[in-house]
C-alpha cells in the first residue's frame, strides 16, 4: 500500500468524494476561535519547493500547522540544490531526518512520482505541482469550490458533480491545473470543455476525457462554471498568439461575456490573476468570482488530504495502483 498523492487521475470517485466531505468538516475548524487539531501531533512534514510558489506553500503550511504537524520549509534557492545536489541526495537527507511526509513542488514533470517510487524515501509524497503535469490538490479545491457553490454546502455532502458543465479557458498547454481538473472533474461526473487558442492546446488532447473548443462565446451559455487559467509567460518559449490584446479579445472574460453565462454560473481562477488580460477587474471583483474562496478552500482540502494520508496507520485514499489496474 502506497501513501502518496501524485496525480488527480489516481483518485477514484469514492476517494475524491471522501476528500471533499472531509474538507467540509475541516472548513468548520477555520470558523473556530482555536483553529487547531491535535491529529498529526509528532509527525514531521517537509515542504520541498524547488519552484517558487508562495500561495501553495503557505496554504500547505497553514494546513499542516492546523493539524499540529511539525513543519520544515525547504526552498531550493540558496540551498544545497543550487550547489548541485540531486533530488536523490535531498531525499536521502530527509529520510535520515525521519520525515513522515514530503510536499513537493518541482519544475520537472514526474519529479514527485520519481520521489515516491524510487525507494529513496519512505515518507508519503504529496504533489504540490510538477512542471506541466499535475497539481492534484488544486483540482480538489476547485471541485470543492464548485460543489459548494453549485450543489450547496450541506446538500453537497456525499455528492459528486454529475451533469455539471465546466469550461476551462486559456493556456491549457502549460497548465497542470487544467490537466488535473480534467481528470478529477471527469471522475466526479462533470462534463469538461477546454477552450483555448489552437496553439495552446496540447498534443494528444483527443485522448483526454473532455471536449475541446476554440470558441469561448459558444460555450458560455451552457457552462455552470468557467475556469480561467493564467497565461504562463514564464513557460512560453515561442509566440503562441499574436498579441495580448488579441488573446484578451478572444479568450478574456469581461463583463459582457459574464452576462451571457447562466445566472447560477461561477467564475473561477487558480490565481495569480493577470487582470486586464485573461480576466477584467469587473469580473474578478464580482460576487460570482470565487478566487478568494478558492484560497480558503485550499487550506481545508489540504488538511483533508494530510489527515487521510497521514492520520492513521495506513492511508484512506490513493491506494497504490499497478499499471494493469489503471
Amino acid at each position, binding site marked *: 500500500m502506497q501513501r502518496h498523492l501524485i496525480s488527480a487521475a489516481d483518485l477514484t470517485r469514492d476517494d475524491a468524494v*471522501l476528500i471533499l*466531505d*472531509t474538507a467540509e*468538516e*475541516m472548513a*468548520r475548524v477555520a470558523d*473556530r*476561535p*482555536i483553529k*487547531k*487539531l*491535535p*491529529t498529526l501531533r509528532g509527525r514531521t512534514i517537509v515542504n520541498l519547493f524547488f519552484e517558487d510558489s508562495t500561495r501553495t506553500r503557505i496554504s500547505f503550511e497553514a494546513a499542516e500547522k492546523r493539524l499540529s504537524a511539525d513543519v520544515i520549509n525547504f526552498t531550493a534557492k540558496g540551498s544545497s540544490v543550487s550547489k548541485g545536489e540531486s533530488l536523490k541526495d535531498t531525499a536521502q537527507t530527509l529520510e535520515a531526518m525521519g520525515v513522515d511526509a514530503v510536499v513537493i513542488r518541482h519544475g520537472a514533470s514526474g519529479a514527485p512520482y520519481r520521489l515516491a517510487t524510487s525507494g529513496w524515501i519512505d515518507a508519503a509524497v504529496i504533489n504540490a505541482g510538477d512542471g506541466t503535469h499535475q497539481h492534484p490538490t488544486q483540482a480538489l479545491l476547485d471541485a470543492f469550490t464548485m460543489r459548494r457553490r453549485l450543489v450547496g454546502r450541506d446538500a453537497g455532502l456525499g455528492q459528486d458533480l454529475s451533469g455539471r458543465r465546466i469550461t476551462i479557458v486559456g493556456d491549457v498547454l502549460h497548465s497542470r491545473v487544467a490537466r488535473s481538473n480534467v481528470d478529477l472533474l471527469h471522475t466526479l461526473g462533470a462534463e469538461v470543455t477546454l477552450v483555448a487558442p489552437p496553439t495552446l492546446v496540447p498534443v494528444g488532447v483527443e485522448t483526454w476525457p473532455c471536449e475541446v473548443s476554440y470558441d469561448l462565446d459558444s460555450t458560455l451559455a451552457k457552462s455552470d462554471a468557467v475556469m480561467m487559467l493564467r497565461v504562463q509567460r514564464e513557460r512560453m518559449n515561442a509566440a503562441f498568439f499574436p498579441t495580448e490584446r488579441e488573446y484578451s479579445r478572444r479568450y478574456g472574460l469581461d463583463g459582457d461575456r459574464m452576462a451571457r453565462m447562466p445566472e447560477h454560473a461561477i467564475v473561477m481562477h487558480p490565481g495569480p490573476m493577470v487582470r486586464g488580460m485573461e480576466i477584467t477587474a469587473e469580473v474578478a471583483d464580482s460576487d460570482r468570482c470565487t478566487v478568494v474562496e478558492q484560497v480558503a478552500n485550499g487550506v481545508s482540502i489540504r488538511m483533508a488530504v494530510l*489527515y*487521510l494520508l497521514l*492520520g*492513521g*496507520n*495506513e*492511508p*484512506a485514499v490513493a491506494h497504490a495502483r499497478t499499471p494493469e489496474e489503471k
Partner: protein
Amino acid sequence: MDTHDPQHLPQDAQSSDARPVLEGPDIARVLTRIAHEIVERAKGADDVVLLGIPTRGVFLAQRLAAKLAEITDRKIPVGSLDITMYRDDLRMHPPRALARTEIPGDGIDGRLVVLVDDVLFSGRTIRAALDALNDIGRPRAVQLAVLVDRGHRELPIRADYVGKNLPTSLRETVKVQLAEEDGRDTVLLGAKRTAQQ
C-alpha cells in the same frame, strides 16, 4: 465509539447469540429519568447544552433535548461533537471518515455542557471529547450522560447520568440500536468472536 460500535463487529456476531438487555420502552423510560435527573442537578436546566457524540449519541441527545423541553417548557440547545481527530488511537487504524461537529449558535462558553453517548467503555472517547471541547470554548461545567455503562474503564472517567449499568466481560460486546439509524430501539449483549480482534 469504542469496540462496542456495531460497525466494527462482524455481521454474524451481531445476530446469533446476542440477547436484548434493554428494549424500546426501557430506553424511553431511562431517557425520561435522565432528563429529570439533569433538571434536578442543574436546577432547571437554564444553561444546559446537550452535545451528542456521533453517531448514536447524537440521536440520544436529540431525544433527551425533546424530553427536557417537555419538562422545562424551554428549548434546549443540542449539537454534536465529533471526536475522531482527537482520538489517541488514530495511528492504530486507517483514518475514519469524519462525522459532523455542530455547536449550537450561542456556543458553549459559560454553559453546562452535557455530553451524551450510547456506551461508556474505556473512557477514551470521553477523554477525546473533553479535549475537543477545550478547543471549542470554555463551559461552566461538563457532565456525561450515557445509555449504558459497561465498565472496564482505562481512564479515571465516570458518568453523571447512566441509563443502565451493565457489568460485562471483555469477551462480550454491547450493541446499541436506535430507531433513527437502525430501525429499532434495543441494547444487545453478545459474545465476542475471538477471530475478530
